[in-house]
């Protein structure tokens, strides 16, 4: 299966709190960013955490966010970015 997003695409992080384990912290949920890179496809950690086989595997992206977008009173440079790895099923087009 092909990756849904390409570097440069604008995405929004889904909001959710599924039971078990997930790797999308609360502070990033609902925020918009830009795909910086595609790391490849990996076993889904949410499945592995519950004893599953990790399939279907999920594409993992490095996503770029403006720090000022994440933190209302961000005290440092307006140019600062956050780079964070997010799995595809947590992303939607923005």
């Amino acid at each position, binding site marked *: 299966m092909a990756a849904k997003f390409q570097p440069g695409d604008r995405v929004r992080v889904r909001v959710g709190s599924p039971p078990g384990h997930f790797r999308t912290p609360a502070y990033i949920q609902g925020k918009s960013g830009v795909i910086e890179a595609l790391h490849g496809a990996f076993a889904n950690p949410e499945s592995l*955490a519950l004893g599953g086989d990790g399939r279907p595997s999920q594409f993992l992206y490095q996503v770029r966010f403006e720090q000022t977008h994440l933190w209302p009173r961000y005290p440092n440079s307006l140019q600062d970015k956050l780079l964070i790895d997010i799995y595809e099923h947590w992303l939607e087009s923005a």
Partner: protein
Amino acid sequence: MQRRVHDRGGWPDAGPIDRVEHVYTMWERQTDAIRGVLGGKGLLRTDELRRAIESIEPCRYEQLRYYERWLVAIEALLIEKGLLTREEIDRKMEEWVTCRS
């Protein structure tokens, strides 16, 4: 969204991070070793350990130190997987305490 206890990014009262390195104690090394052995044998996955740590009741989570959370989580997973029973663990602990006193 329901923010869980381990999900600390941006907590307003989180305070500064203690960056001081400390020497690992023997029990911390042993905890790491147990995890390594179980992982090597394919009995415990990193994501399972994370899930078990993140499932610790929030009040207790706050009271436990880093490797104590590992211990609690490893114990819960061993029982969940049927590798040990609660009774076996308790019996061994009792033997140990008796021997050492």
